[in-house]
């Protein structure tokens, strides 16, 4: 079964979404991520969506949910690498991902997390 890998860098967890998301995969990711945040005592989650060309309301909601779950577990979420077309689509859909921090690329995302946890 396909699975989205979660990498650990210090106290930050790195998730790179590179395949089409569907319900099963999203649930799996939420399960994995929450248990890893607790298990690794992570205080930051970085989600890279730079290879996603299409984002629908489902993925938008999933990202919001992951951010909310992480916040409950005291970890900051940063979404990085969103494509312009995706950003426009999400805004038009009315999904502005409030409460989710964003950065242009992984480098800036990590800098943002470090700043936030210092």
């Amino acid at each position: 079964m396909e699975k989205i890998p979660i990498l650990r860098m210090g106290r930050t967890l790195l998730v790179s979404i590179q395949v089409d998301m569907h319900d099963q995969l999203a649930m799996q990711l939420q399960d994995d991520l929450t248990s890893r945040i607790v298990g690794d005592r992570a205080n930051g989650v970085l989600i890279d969506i730079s290879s996603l060309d299409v984002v629908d309301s489902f993925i938008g909601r999933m990202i919001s949910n992951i951010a909310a779950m992480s916040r409950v577990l005291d970890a900051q979420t940063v979404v990085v690498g969103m494509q312009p077309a995706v950003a426009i689509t999400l805004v038009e859909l009315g999904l502005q991902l409030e409460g989710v921090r964003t950065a242009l690329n992984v480098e800036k995302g990590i800098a943002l997390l470090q700043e936030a946890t210092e």
Partner: protein
Amino acid sequence: MKEETQLAAIIRKNEADILSEWIKAQMAKQTRRDQVHEAEIRANCKEFLAALSEAMRATGSVDVRSPDWSKVRDLLTEISTSRATQGFSPTETATFVFSLKHPLFARLRAEITDARALAEEMWRATLLLDDLGLFTTEAYQKSREEVIHRQQRELLELSTPVVALWDDVLALPLIGTLDSGRTQVVMESLLERIVETGASIAIIDITGVPTVDTLVAQHLMKTVAAARLMGADCIISGIRPQIAQTIVHLGVDLSAVTTKASLADAFAVALKRTGATVTRTAAASAAAKPSA
């Protein structure tokens, strides 16, 4: 359709006379002689009259929308378009067709002796020329509208420049009314540039936006939200006093966005956020920018 062929026959027989009188009438009416050369009018008239008589020979119908008249229609469209671009008024353009009436009616009067038949033919010729005249005006209008549309498109492209002010700082000076189509273009070009330059702050300057209503505010908020999703912060600057009042009276909530009165203020904030400072050297104090 005996009557039709009679009209056609009269035109064909007197083509040369009608043509010369028609051209004379047009030259007399033309107030500004520099607009079209006599040679061009002559060529236009000749072509038109030939097409007209051919169409009338081919069909008995005076319905100018029918396919038999396509050649005449094409010719008129061409003439109207060229005149529209040369700056003729609609009246002047339509006169091209209407001025044919006088020489044509004169010929009809000369050729047809029977009063009833004459009235009949005059009526048909009037109908035909009126239709053609209206068609000319329509074509004129259409070509003018095309010009307007093209200019609108060009304006849209011209009026949304995204400029890099500093490392990591972009500025988007908006000029003109913001509608949904424009917002889309603005949003796209801003986001593209954010990706290209890796900028983390974008300043949207609305000094050139004449009015801000709820719709414009909503469009601005959308642009800001999209930029935020990409990981760039937006500052809105250039809010004039009247616009500040309007925004509050309309109950638009801009509290989620950093707003500054002038581009200079917004730039200072942007420099502070990126950690850059600008200092004035003693020698060039007059030319240098104030420190952030």
